[in-house]
């Protein structure tokens, strides 16, 4: 049974369709990437899942039951992109306050905070104020506050912005560990290399619509362009074949080729064997998520531009 199931979710504003008929489901223990350009409707979608907004249409199922914001919100940890804390409040008190708002009792909240503060080496921060912390330190604190009450579902919107590589890794490790212990994580970002590294499953949202859904590998397979890298023993002379096109010449006698339709990898290898060119390396080049992202999002922009020229 999926932990979270979103069915035909819609949220319209007066001027735009922020979320237009989006459905997906997330299995427990997965790290789920929610991708999309700015203004795609990611935040609106997340706000509906956290119970901040009510959807206009569609439904959300949490652990198989209809999502009840009042009760289920306590089992969700949400770290919004626009996040902050009270400037003038002591960090310890602040953490206690937010933990109690999530339904923890006072002694329980204290125990949990102590545990996490020790884990992240933040014990000395208790009596400090946010003003005294750097941006990265604040980020770490935000993360702790988000996961403190041991939520089933953790939603992180751009969790690594402003973090140095050391702290980034610390949080990344923590995310893996939480996923292994059965937490489900929704991870929203623009940084594609992080998505490729961390996420099991992704969806891509643009202009309120879902345009891509699947595991990272599935998506890459779906958008592969039959590109291959060939490493040769010596610099090849001009290569001309009807089975493939040369995309570019690479370093170390490498060639990037694209196989023409109707031909297979063996046809390419056959060509080089016939040419007496020893092949040292041969592997498929899958597109990076970044390329796919840009292609899909820019493509949609191109459609609008074309449309405009027709009108004028």
């Amino acid at each position, binding site marked *: 049974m999926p932990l979270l199931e979103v069915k035909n979710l819609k949220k319209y504003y007066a001027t735009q369709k922020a979320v237009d008929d989006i459905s997906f489901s997330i299995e427990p223990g997965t790290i789920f990437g929610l991708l999309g350009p700015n203004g795609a409707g990611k935040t609106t979608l997340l*706000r509906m899942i*956290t*119970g*901040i907004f*009510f959807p206009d249409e569609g439904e959300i199922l949490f652990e198989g039951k209809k999502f009840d914001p*009042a009760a289920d*919100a*306590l089992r*969700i940890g*949400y*770290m*919004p992109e*626009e*996040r*902050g*804390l*009270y*400037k*003038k*409040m002591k960090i310890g008190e602040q953490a206690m*306050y*937010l933990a*109690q*708002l*999530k*339904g923890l009792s006072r002694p329980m909240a204290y125990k949990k905070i102590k545990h996490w503060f020790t884990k992240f080496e933040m014990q000395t921060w208790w009596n400090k104020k946010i003003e005294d912390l750097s941006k990265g330190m604040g980020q770490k604190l*935000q993360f702790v*506050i988000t996961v403190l009450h041991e939520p089933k579902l953790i939603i992180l919107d751009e969790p690594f912005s402003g973090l140095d590589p050391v702290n980034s890794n610390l949080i990344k490790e923590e995310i893996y560990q939480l996923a292994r212990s059965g937490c489900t994580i929704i991870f929203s970002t623009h940084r594609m290399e992080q998505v490729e590294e961390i996420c099991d499953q992704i969806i891509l949202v643009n202009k309120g619509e879902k345009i891509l859904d699947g595991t990272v590998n599935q998506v890459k397979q779906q958008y592969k362009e039959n590109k291959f890298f060939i490493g040769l023993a010596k610099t090849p002379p001009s290569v001309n074949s009807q089975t493939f096109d040369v995309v570019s010449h690479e370093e170390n006698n490498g060639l990037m080729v694209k196989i023409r339709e109707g031909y297979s990898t063996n046809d390419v290898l056959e060509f080089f064997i016939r040419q007496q060119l020893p092949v040292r390396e041969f592997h498929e080049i899958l597109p990076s998520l970044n390329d796919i992202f840009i292609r899909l999002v820019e493509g949609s922009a191109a459609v609008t531009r074309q449309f405009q020229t027709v009108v004028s």
Partner: protein
Amino acid sequence: MSKIWLVIKREYLTRVKNKTFILSTFLTPLLFAGLIGIIVFITVKNTDKEKIAILDNSGVFTKATDSIKAVQLRLNPTVDSLNYDKSGYTALLVAPHQGINQSNNWRLYSKKSLPVSAVNAIEDRIRKGVENNMLMAQFHVNNENIDSIREQAHQLQLEEKRLGAGNNDRNGSSVVAYIVGYGASFLIYITLFIYGAMVMRGVMEEKTNRIAEVIISSVKPFDLMMGKIIGIGAVGLTQFFMWIILITVFSSIIGAFIPHDVMMQVNEVNKGVPGMQMSMQGSEAMMALGKISHELSSVNWLLITICFVFYFLFGYLFYAALFAAVGSSVNEDPQDAQSLMFPVTMPIILAIVIMINAITHPDSSLATWSSIIPFFSPIVMMARIPFGVPGTVPYWQLASSMILLILGFLGTTWLSAKIYRTGILLYGKKVTWKEMWKWAFRKS
């Protein structure tokens, strides 16, 4: 319920523990006491009178020196308009050679302009002298006889009695009612602004610090808003009670320093011993003091205190919700806050303007109606209540004013909650009144 309680607790404790709060709570009564002390000191010790020389051959001014309010007059035939200032006078009053009985023939020469009160006092004195002159000339009545008759007549004082249930045996006093009403409604006016602005700043802080979204994922926006409003209201009440305690303590300390025989004298005046001859100037002040303390006891303090707490509380709740709505719609720019706040502060300022009129005519229809309309009632009604319930303010007016204020509070809170929940999560966009109106009245 437990969550709104957590929010209230945080709002209350962070503010009460704040150094500024502790300082202002303890310093304000001190400042207040100091201010009263200074005012008393100035009125008692004001010896800095303008010295004015008089050139008068007509005999209107009989006394060689005469000290009246703000001026000291001295008959001095040796000075003239050229050298009066060298002799230490600030002005020279010259009586006319002819037509003495027309005061517009009199001339007052000075280099700087004299205070209005001084000029008025001199005018009064001339009129009186002229009057005496004419009485003497036409009816042959002696000056001194007139003065003694005047003095006897002057001792008569009007004792006001209010009729009607509730204050049968109470001696009404418009002066004390005036002062109490003015003070109470002004206090509400100031606190509406102080605590209203505090709510607005609190909401703005949560919005600009981006903590709102973190909290709203675990608390309903309405609970967050109400928690803030109630928490800050509790801070206001705490401050009031602290002030009352501190002022009581201070005044009893000050009371201990006033000499015993002075207090005895005040008490005697208080009992209303008639015909007590007061020759000294100081005793006149004592009599006034005695009269005031007598009149203070004629005011229904319990009713006024209860009404004050009610109108402060619900007036605050009525406006705080609106201030919260404004705070939620403002972006970082404080300039926006100013322009959006204007429609909310407007009725409060209008109320104080109406109050100033209502306190002199507490029975007028303007005063009556605006003390029932929730936008103005906290301020205007507080100005009317000290004049007597149900004498000046019938029970039906008080009841409908209170009920409408409670209904009004529910109304503004309901509207503001809708604006708040949209505004608090909207970043980087300047909100107009038209949009806020739309948020408030659209179906959710």
